[in-house]
């Protein structure tokens, strides 16, 4: 113990209080920074390590020592938040796909396919009633234009679906690129963090940034994180590592030029995510939702549209051309083109071009029978369309409620993370007051020691002067 050890002690106390105030300032500054984890100064009382002949019994400690600045995080809570956010991102993306599909339907409404079909049945019935060449030819024109409206409506549905599919397919590549970039950034941060930790400096802010990047990767691909030595993390998508220490792999999309016809044709091809050259399937996240939509959901919907077109063509042709004469059909349907492959074959309204009666009569029995199509649920195209719409609606509703649920779960786990790592301004203010008082008190101790020394140095030995 030297005469000046007290000054040394207060100097440490002042430094600790000051550092604590600085960290509080950092916390307050980042109170609203996404992904920021609050920090604390770790300090411990300093002990005098003197022994042997220097050992004294009546000696105070050696003040306070700062051991480091720690980050308030909980690996378990972080992992859960990451997983829940990934699930939520996947469900949101799926719900959006369904929402886009059903918005295009226009059901139920006056511009819907249901209405178009009903109008067509009516026009057939009117033709069935029509007599006299003027009335017949105008009734036939109406049948043709209403049937064309059905064809156009189906074509429009199929086109908007194809467009949506194309957008999603391109989106997959963009997302994969985003994931690649983010993986590279994680690897880079891994490297920086290792260096920082090796040189003994604080890597707290870098760790926060890396957590953010990893979370983004998880939202894209449902990536899993494994801690490794040197403060680094490895990131896995499916069974493939996309980040190993300071190295990252490239994510890309296999078959980026896929077409909808290929995706739903026989021996369907699929859009796949690949790490390097290895195909992987993302566990969750936006990419998984996008790939599912491109490979399964939208081809399925497109198939249902095509089934409806096929049904319309089959049922109308069966009545219109019962003998199956070549070229005598009302509708042509090209299955390879999906719902857009439906077209009206009848070219004009003359008796030779338009077969609405039993040959040799004007009974219009064919037109009448076609007008009665909706009476028979088993044969009515409206019935099969109705079940398609209902099943799309149910799928969409289910996707939406799953998305809502996943969003609220993600919100809860993000709140749980916030509870561990978030900055509470009241707490920081309280700490600030405490640190400020500690600082003032330490300064006061210094002043008293100073005064004591002043007394010792300047006022001793003056007796009798």
């Amino acid at each position, binding site marked *: 113990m030297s005469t000046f050890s007290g000054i040394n002690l207060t100097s440490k106390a002042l430094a600790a209080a000051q550092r604590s105030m600085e960290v509080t300032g950092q916390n307050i500054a980042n109170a609203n920074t996404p992904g920021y984890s609050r920090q604390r100064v770790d300090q411990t009382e300093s002990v005098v390590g003197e022994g042997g002949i220097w050992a004294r019994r009546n000696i105070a400690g050696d003040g306070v020592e700062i051991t480091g600045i720690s980050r308030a995080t909980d690996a378990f809570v972080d992992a859960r938040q990451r997983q829940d956010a990934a699930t939520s991102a996947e469900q949101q993306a799926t719900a959006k796909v369904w929402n886009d599909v059903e918005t295009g339907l226009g059901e139920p409404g006056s511009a819907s396919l249901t209405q178009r079909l009903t109008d067509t049945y009516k026009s057939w019935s009117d033709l069935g009633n029509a007599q006299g060449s003027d009335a017949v030819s105008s009734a036939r024109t109406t049948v043709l234009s209403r049937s064309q409206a059905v064809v156009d409506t189906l074509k429009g549905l199929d086109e908007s679906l194809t467009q949506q599919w194309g957008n999603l397919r391109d989106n997959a590549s963009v997302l994969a690129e985003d994931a690649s970039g983010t993986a590279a950034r994680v690897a880079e941060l891994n490297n920086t963090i290792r260096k920082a930790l090796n040189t003994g400096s604080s890597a707290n802010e870098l760790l926060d940034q890396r957590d953010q990047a990893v979370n983004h990767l998880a939202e894209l691909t449902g990536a899993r994180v494994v801690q490794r030595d040197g403060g680094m993390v490895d990131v896995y998508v499916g069974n493939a590592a996309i980040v190993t220490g300071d190295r990252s792999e490239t994510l890309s999309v296999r078959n980026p030029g896929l077409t909808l016809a290929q995706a739903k044709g026989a021996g369907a091809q699929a859009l796949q995510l690949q790490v390097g050259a290895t195909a992987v399937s993302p566990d969750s996240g936006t990419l998984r939702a996008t790939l599912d939509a491109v490979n399964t959901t939208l081809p399925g919907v497109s198939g249902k549209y095509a089934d409806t077109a096929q049904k319309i063509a089959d049922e109308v042709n069966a009545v219109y051309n019962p003998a199956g004469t070549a070229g005598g059909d009302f509708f042509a349907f090209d299955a390879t083109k999906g719902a857009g492959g439906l077209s009206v074959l009848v070219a004009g309204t003359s008796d030779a071009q338009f077969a609405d009666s039993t040959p040799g009569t004007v009974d219009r029995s064919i037109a009448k029978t076609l007008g009665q199509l909706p009476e028979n649920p088993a044969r009515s195209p409206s019935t099969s369309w109705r079940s398609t719409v209902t099943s799309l*609606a149910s799928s969409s509703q289910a996707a939406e409620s799953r998305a809502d649920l996943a969003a609220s779960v993600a919100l809860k786990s993000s709140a749980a993370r916030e509870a561990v790592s978030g900055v509470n301004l009241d707490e920081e203010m309280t700490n600030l007051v405490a640190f400020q008082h500690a600082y003032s008190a330490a300064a006061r101790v210094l002043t008293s020691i100073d005064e004591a020394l002043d007394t010792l140095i300047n006022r001793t030995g003056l007796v009798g002067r």
Partner: protein
Amino acid sequence: MFSRITNRSIAVGSMTNLQASMNRSNKLQEQLSSGQVLSKPSDDPVVTNNSIQYRTEIGVQEQYGRNNLDGQAWLNSADAALQDSVKVMQRVRDLTVQAANTGANDTTARRAIAIEVDSLKENLLSSANTKYLGRPIFAGTKIGDVAFDATGAFQGDAGVVARRVGPNVDVAANVSGEGAFGDDGATFAMLTDLSTALKSGSGAGINDFITKVDTGLGLLKDSLSTVGARTNQLEALKDTSDARVDSLTDSHNDITAIDLPKTLIEYNLQKTAYETALASTAKVIQPTLMDFLR
């Protein structure tokens, strides 16, 4: 469980709740402005399903009504034509009776009667060739412009012009030409014979024609009553299909249109809740310890 609450988590929580509240308001506003419960199928797949079914069914029933009116128009034309024909035949009967009572030597009088019968035959032929919208109503379903040619021979067929006026209910809107005017226009042939008999010789055998004219008249009257019965049937069915359209439209509106008072009240409740949430959020977010430290 005690958990740390931070200013940010309060802000995020408040924001989420405000968003949810606003979303509900938006949904109600959408319903109020459109007047429809559904804005997209997934709002309620069951209602969507029923709505499509109702729309199709309403279309079918409306078409029954249209077919029915067309059938009635056909029958009305047939009715008018047959009424005229009955009048013509009654006049023929009067003349035949008159001719039968004319003295055996009064050839001039019989000749005059014969000329009138000829012209009455033409009238009858024109009634028998009555057209509705350019289509001869007694020609069945055969292609052609007339039901009976100038000689009175039948040119049509026995085809039925049926109108679908209810589920699986087809009503014939025409009556057979042969049913009304005899097999292969027998009535016309009989009138020709009558005229020939009147013009030639003594006038013997004219008496026999009275029965034959009565047979022709009987055929017309039978057809007329058939037309009347069918018209009645169609009128009754029209009422049925109209009532069905009304009830289907009602049911459709019941499930797809909003309950205005209920939705308005819900909207106001939602608005109040939203405003309360805004006010309380403003109060909760503001204060921190800073406000109370000197």
